[in-house]
């Protein structure tokens, strides 16, 4: 579904991503992790077309992402911080988005998260008056709303309360069962290990490891993602 070949990205002269080669397919749920400044957000921005790669090719469903915007139809994105137009209320935002997404037929919206996160209770409120967590809920509901086959979630659980957090995780797991591709970044590894079946670890713009959760588990004989990461990092240091 996503094929990244030899991606390199520089900001001014600093290299933020180098020699990134990744292939992700349906049914995978990727935990995209790495320390601050390792290039996770840049990678996501490139996938969304917000940043332009310097070299390399990226294909989403066999479409070269530098040619045309249609590939983004299959992507749902939940940003880390969202600032919505303050004067709109939640309902109006969704209706605006529906108008912008004429490619999605009228009955094909997925409002389950909208309902489950009890957004209807505050849908008349202006977006400018919502709390950070509520905005995050709106943002999550919006990401799933148009039934995308690829979901990109940037720190989805950071501002959510425990109940909403669980609702979102259930939603993500059902999306995996529905054969979608999910890419999640987070620093809360305990959240990630419940929803991810694949780990990509970025460090200083390079892929340190990229493997299924199961294989990492047997390789490191650790149980939690946190410990697996630590053990793998120690192995790397010993190799170096």
């Amino acid at each position, binding site marked *: 579904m996503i094929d990244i070949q030899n991606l390199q990205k520089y900001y001014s002269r600093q290299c933020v991503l180098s020699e990134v080669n990744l292939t992700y397919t349906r049914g995978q749920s990727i935990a995209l992790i790495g320390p601050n400044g390792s290039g996770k957000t840049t990678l996501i*921005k490139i996938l969304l077309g917000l940043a332009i790669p310097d070299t390399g090719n990226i294909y989403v469903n066999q479409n070269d992402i530098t040619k045309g915007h249609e590939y983004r139809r299959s992507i749902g994105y939940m940003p880390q911080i969202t600032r919505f137009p303050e*004067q709109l209320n939640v309902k109006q935002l969704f209706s605006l988005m529906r108008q*912008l997404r004429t490619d999605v037929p009228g009955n094909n919206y997925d409002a389950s998260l909208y309902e489950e996160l009890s957004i209807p209770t505050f849908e008349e409120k202006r977006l400018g008056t919502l709390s950070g967590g509520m905005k995050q809920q709106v943002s999550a509901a919006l990401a799933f709303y148009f039934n995308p086959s690829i979901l990109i979630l940037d720190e989805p659980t950071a501002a959510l309360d425990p109940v909403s957090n669980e609702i979102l995780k259930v939603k993500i797991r059902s999306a995996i069962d529905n054969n979608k591709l999910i890419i999640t970044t987070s620093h809360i590894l305990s959240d990630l290990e419940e929803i991810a079946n694949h780990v990509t670890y970025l460090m200083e713009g390079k892929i340190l490891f990229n493997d299924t959760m199961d294989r990492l588990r047997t390789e490191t004989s650790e149980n939690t993602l946190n410990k697996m990461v630590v053990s793998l990092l120690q192995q790397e240091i010993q190799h170096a």
Partner: protein
Amino acid sequence: MLKISAVILQNLLRNKAIFGYLVLLCFTGWGMFLYESQPEKAVLSILQIVLLVLPLITLIFTTTYYYHSQEFLFLLLAQPIKRSDIFAGLYIGLAIAFLAVFFIGIGLPVLLFASGMQSLFLLLSGLLLNLVFIAIALLVGVGVHDKSRGIGVTLITWAFFAFIYNGLVIFMMYQLSDYPIENLILVLSFLNPVDIARIMVIMKSEASALLGLSGAVFQDFFGTAKGGVVSILALILWSIIPFWITHKMFRKRDL
């Protein structure tokens, strides 16, 4: 694209700064005619405001607005929408809002109280100056990533067009006063949109008689119908070129 403009416009019309700007322009436009008994003089006073205040507010507001709405632009950019449509939508939304404010504050009173070529040119130049400075402000916003630096650049841009450029030209005129430089000055005045607008309007008024020798050259050029058309075209170019550059930049840039 027009849907995006509609959202931007809706957002702008509820903006307090835009409302304050409307009040300011209303005071100038309507107030000047109430206060001044000769409409011709009132038009010239309004011209001064249009030449100084309009670029300043348009520049600062537009750049600030661009920085402020960046996250929302991200959300839109992540949708299957062409980047150029988003940019054009933003520009159109801003242009409609500013032109509406200008029309209510300045346009209506001028049309009501002072008809004639001079007023027509005042409105035309005000309209085009709006478009020019929105385009320049977006150029700064897209070109400079850092917000505070961007605002600084807009302020310098404003100062440059409002008085620094004129200062330089006058300095040069004094230095070269022994040479026939009238035609050179004519060309130089086209390099500043504020100057084009100023000369365009003044030449249609009787005050142009006060402009002395180079005034005569200006009168020869700007006073004619051809001169009027050329200066309007020049202002249109002044809005199209920054728009086009920014548009190109916006399409190929990391955001």
